[in-house]
């Protein structure tokens, strides 16, 4: 039986269903499909389609060892998957708090194929069972905190009154981490109260919640359920403030606790009742009124504010004008409810591992919080490590550009030891770097296609990327026509141009490196100063638009250029340091990774690296997100973030928000 089996006797029809499920597996990839491709996994070839949300997935596919933060987030995703669900771990170690993987295999295509076959058998044989175990994601544990409706900055663990205005604090749910949930438990109460059952009543600790039928107010029950008269779901109510969820203007009575409240019909003001209920004339819900301001109920907001100043308003009086007057307006001038929506760390349209918290004003992004869960920590080296181990470590920490960072380490070590690579080795290394650039840019194109719904681009760029990775010069020459054809079609695609033009424009005042800078027209490329590249006939590709379209075109140009450089170099050499013996000294190197210039400084002692300092382009670029996304439409904001081509692994941890 698989660990995420669904409860039920395993018999008859269920066997058939289980066999169908085993064939129809969809994977939710953690941390993301781009990392799977970087490790050479071809999920499409293995017959494993991707699910865009854990809700639609049958298997959680875990790629490589995950840091703790990502495992927590993965446990949230797993908890969201409907049973029967399974975990397939490739090259992963400790999975806690996730349950033990149903199948573990090596992080290779063969491992994927054999693991998948094994998993399909396991599901066909054990998708249902009688003794299923519960799984609770620790990160989803909900606690209730209390906050003031007027002063959201006031948050307390206990109920009580607001120290600023004396209002009663309202309970709200909060959870330990956002995860992928898409739930926004701590959104302001106004946000979704009409379809959430009112939060403050459901979780009010002091009062017992009661349930009533929306159509038959005389039906009152202590338990949720359905109405005995009409079968509708009973809605929770809380004493006398059950009410005005539908009035749209919560101001009058929500907290009118001191005075007796009367209820009236919004359409028939002559109907007045002491009890909540529905209007005898039209059946609408009665809304509560306070006697004294019943008159100006329909006169608009203005009166509330002008008749009495805020100071003069009694503590219970809640004015919409008062609540919203200090809130910033969005660019369109519409006052809307703001939602805090978690995006990532496994969001299908963003680099896996990058967690964002978007504040959405309608579908406009009004704020972005970044919560990167991976990334390298300083210091890179805590105890002295041998040179080759340091290189291996660098390659392992940067899964999206292992060759670049391995080569960077090699160059820095050689610089410190005072040796210099032979001319043909340097040429081979340059070609290896360019091959990685092609693969990296193709991977970015594929992600970009997936995010913008351009499926042809997503699939064909991914297929080419998998072929380019690890290819030798002959194979790359053979792939060149296919790659050029892809780029040609992409450059001509008019809808892509329309989609990207003018999005996320950067000007030359920003701190950008690599392709981002070159798409603004800045000649910023470490390769320009490199003799090997000069000998190969290199000159930087430049574009001037500065927007997402320019970045796309520039990356296409760079793929073309890299193909030419590899052809000129003629050989590809893996980054391996020559024996440096017991060398010591300080060294530095700079290298143009696919995402921009990276700098490494290190100190050697007795042939071992004792300290190292790394500066990566992604660390600088992640700071651009906030300005780029401000006041953008949601889809545009995500295109903007994607156009930066961030690798969360290459972001320094100290810079994370």
């Amino acid at each position, binding site marked *: 039986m698989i660990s995420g089996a669904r409860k039920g006797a395993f018999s008859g029809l269920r066997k058939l269903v289980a066999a169908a499920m085993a064939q129809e597996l969809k994977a939710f990839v953690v941390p993301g499909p781009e990392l799977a491709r970087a490790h050479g996994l071809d999920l499409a070839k293995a017959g494993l389609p991707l699910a865009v949300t854990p809700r639609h997935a049958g298997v959680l596919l875990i790629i490589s060892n995950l840091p703790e933060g990502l495992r927590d987030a993965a446990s949230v995703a797993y908890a969201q998957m409907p049973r029967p669900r399974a975990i397939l771990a490739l090259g992963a170690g400790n999975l806690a708090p996730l349950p033990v993987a149903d199948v573990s295999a090596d992080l290779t295509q063969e491992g994927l194929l054999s693991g998948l076959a094994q998993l399909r058998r396991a599901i066909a044989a054990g998708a249902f069972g009688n003794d299923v175990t519960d799984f609770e994601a620790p990160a989803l544990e909900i606690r209730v905190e209390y906050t003031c409706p007027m002063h959201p900055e006031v948050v307390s663990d206990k109920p009580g009154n607001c120290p600023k205005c004396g209002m009663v604090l309202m309970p709200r749910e909060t959870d330990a981490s956002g995860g992928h949930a*898409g*739930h926004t438990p701590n959104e302001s109460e106004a946000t979704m109260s009409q379809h959430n059952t009112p939060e403050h009543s459901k979780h009010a600790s002091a009062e017992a919640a009661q349930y009533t039928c929306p159509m038959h107010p005389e039906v009152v029950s202590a338990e949720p359920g359905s109405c005995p008269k009409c079968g509708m779901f009973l809605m929770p109510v809380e004493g006398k403030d059950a009410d005005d969820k539908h009035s749209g203007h919560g101001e009058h009575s929500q907290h009118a606790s001191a005075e007796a409240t009367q209820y009236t019909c919004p359409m028939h003001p002559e109907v007045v009742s002491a009890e909540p209920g529905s209007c005898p004339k039209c059946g609408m819900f009665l809304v509560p009124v306070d006697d004294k301001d019943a008159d100006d109920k329909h006169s608009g907001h203005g009166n509330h504010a002008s008749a009495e100043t805020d100071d003069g308003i009694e503590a219970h009086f809640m004015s919409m004008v008062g609540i919203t007057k200090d809130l910033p307006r969005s660019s369109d001038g519409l006052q809307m409810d703001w939602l805090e929506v978690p995006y990532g760390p496994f969001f299908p349209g963003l680099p896996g591992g990058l967690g964002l918290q978007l504040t959405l004003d309608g579908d406009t992004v009004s704020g972005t919080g970044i919560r990167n869960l991976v990334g390298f920590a300083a210091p890179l080296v805590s105890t002295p490590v041998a040179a080759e181990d340091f290189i291996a470590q660098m390659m392992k920490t940067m899964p999206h550009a292992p060759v670049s960072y391995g080569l960077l380490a090699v160059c820095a070590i050689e610089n410190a030891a005072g040796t210099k690579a032979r001319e043909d080795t340097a040429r081979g290394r340059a070609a290896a770097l360019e091959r990685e650039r092609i693969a990296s840019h193709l991977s970015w194109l594929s992600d970009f296609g997936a995010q913008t*719904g351009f499926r042809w681009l997503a699939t064909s760029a991914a297929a080419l990327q998998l072929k380019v990775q690890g290819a030798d010069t002959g194979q790359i020459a053979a792939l060149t026509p296919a790659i050029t054809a892809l780029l040609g079609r992409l450059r001509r695609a008019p809808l892509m141009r329309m*989609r990207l033009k003018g999005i996320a424009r950067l000007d030359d005042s920003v701190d950008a490196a690599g392709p981002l800078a070159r798409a603004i027209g800045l000649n910023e490329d470490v390769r320009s100063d490199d003799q090997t590249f000069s000998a190969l006939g290199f000159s930087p590709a430049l574009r001037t638009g500065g927007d997402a379209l320019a970045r796309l075109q520039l990356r296409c140009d760079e793929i073309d250029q890299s193909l030419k450089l590899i052809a000129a170099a003629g050989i590809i050499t893996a980054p391996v340091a020559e024996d440096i013996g017991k060398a010591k000294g300080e060294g530095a190197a700079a290298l143009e990774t696919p995402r921009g210039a990276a700098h490494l400084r290190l100190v050697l002692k007795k042939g071992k690296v004792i300290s190292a300092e790394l500066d990566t382009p992604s660390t600088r670029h992640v700071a651009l997100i906030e300005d780029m996304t401000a006041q953008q439409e949601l889809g545009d904001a995500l295109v903007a973030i994607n156009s930066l081509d961030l690798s969360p692994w290459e972001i320094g941890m100290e810079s994370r928000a």
Partner: protein
Amino acid sequence: MNIAIILGSLALGAYIIAIVESWATYGRLRLAGPALAALALLGRESVLARKPDRLFFETAPVLLLVAGLLAVAVIPLAPDLIITDLSSGALFLNAALAYVLVALIMAGWGANGAYGMIGGWRFLGQFIAYAMLIVMPITAVAMRAESLMTTQIVISQVELWNIFYQPIGFVLFVIAAMGLAYLPPLDLPLAPGDLAGGVEAEYTGVRLGVLRLARMIIILSLAGATVTFYLGGWLGPWLPPWAWSAIKILVVTVAMLMAGHYMPRIREARYLALSWKLGISLALANIFLVGVIALVVPI
């Protein structure tokens, strides 16, 4: 009898579309795929989102299904093969499909998740873009047929199919139909890259199955409408009328499904701007042209 035949062919059509759609999406042609997928969805838990609006959450998939089935009722597969030949058929189709909007907003809202809710509201914006472009081309079609009866509309094309008589209307109608069926590149309410499935994001198991089946039926009904209004319905030589209807509907469906494969999703603002500034002007021009031709040339 007609009802049984049409529902049967609808089921078969939906099955074929499911094969094509999974082929377009995943690049694998699997004939048993849809049956397996349906079984797998039946076996999976149908999770109830946290604090849902249950009424909306449960009703939405069914409402979407009903909207699609109602629309199918006025599509003729052959002169006698139609569930109900209403005298206001073309209008009824519109009225039935208006519930697609309601169902999607309910689905997005009911699940109590931000992705779904934004997806639902996005579709409301999308509605503003496509709604006029469904109705206005139909107006021109009805002008030529001098009837809103769908069978009458087919018969009016005996001399010349409407695709040649009013090509502008055809193009506008197909694009609007793709918007209505939220097919890529107009899949704004689903937008896997922006909203992780949008209105479908919180649905699982049987409910998701119903939601997807309903969408296929809507796609089929719109392909049927395209064939009826523009491609001469059952008209054609040699083969029996029902075979012509089936072939044309499948071809249109496949074309609509594959188109999104080769283009990125459009921006909502751009879609609205194009629909209103360009689309409606063209639709008005189409009505005018068809009116002039109908007066001058007797075909």
